[in-house]
């Protein structure tokens, strides 16, 4: 089961976990990204490329399902304005064995960082600035070949 969502609403983590667990396998690994509360950001805005975003996320999830024989892969990404502490992204990978679930979870978040068309803008002290891409993200995605 692949579940992809790009949404303005808050990410309902219990509901997402219930869906991922419904696949009924041994282990579920998840990663949740939060708007950081510790670096002066007042609001974070996420812009995306409708249509292309969903297709890119689906390709990432399908790649993980095939590579690790997952029973479920979930990617939920929020767009629009957010505040510190809000969930930006939630990914989950369910598999019969934990190593597969854990590796696939890392793959999902690494890949979506480089493959999906999202752009972050941070507002601090009333000034908005686009976030620069990090070379470390390209490196992290690259390790999956």
């Amino acid at each position: 089961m692949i579940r992809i969502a790009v949404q303005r609403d808050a990410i309902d983590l219990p509901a997402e976990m219930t869906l991922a667990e419904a696949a009924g396998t041994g282990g579920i690994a998840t990663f949740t990204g939060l708007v950081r509360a510790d670096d002066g950001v007042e609001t974070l805005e996420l812009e995306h490329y409708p249509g292309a975003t969903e297709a890119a996320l689906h390709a990432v999830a399908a790649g993980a399902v095939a590579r690790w024989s997952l029973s479920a892969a979930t990617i939920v990404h929020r767009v629009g304005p957010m505040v510190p502490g809000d969930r930006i992204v939630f990914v989950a990978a369910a598999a019969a064995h934990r190593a597969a679930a854990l590796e696939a979870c890392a793959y999902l978040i690494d890949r979506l960082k480089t493959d999906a068309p999202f752009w972050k803008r941070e507002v601090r002290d009333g000034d908005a600035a686009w976030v620069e891409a990090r070379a470390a993200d390209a490196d992290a995605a690259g390790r999956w070949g």
Partner: protein
Amino acid sequence: MTIRMVYFAWVRERVGVAEELVDPPATATTVAALVDWLAAESDRHAAAFADRGRLRAAVDQDFVAMEASIAGAREVALFPPVTGG
């Protein structure tokens, strides 16, 4: 050939519009040539595309290199490196 251009993030802000329809000359056969042509057409485009190294593209919603062909393209997107997740 009319192409729908779509822009995101600071590329969108600098161009000043999120979308526009353009009619590039037949000699503009790649994304890079399309970008060069647009940059020559207006100062706003020139400013938006000034740093080619920070520009990324998609043709009909597939990510491509700047050297990719735009033959038959209906939609070309230009944007900065992505920063999701």
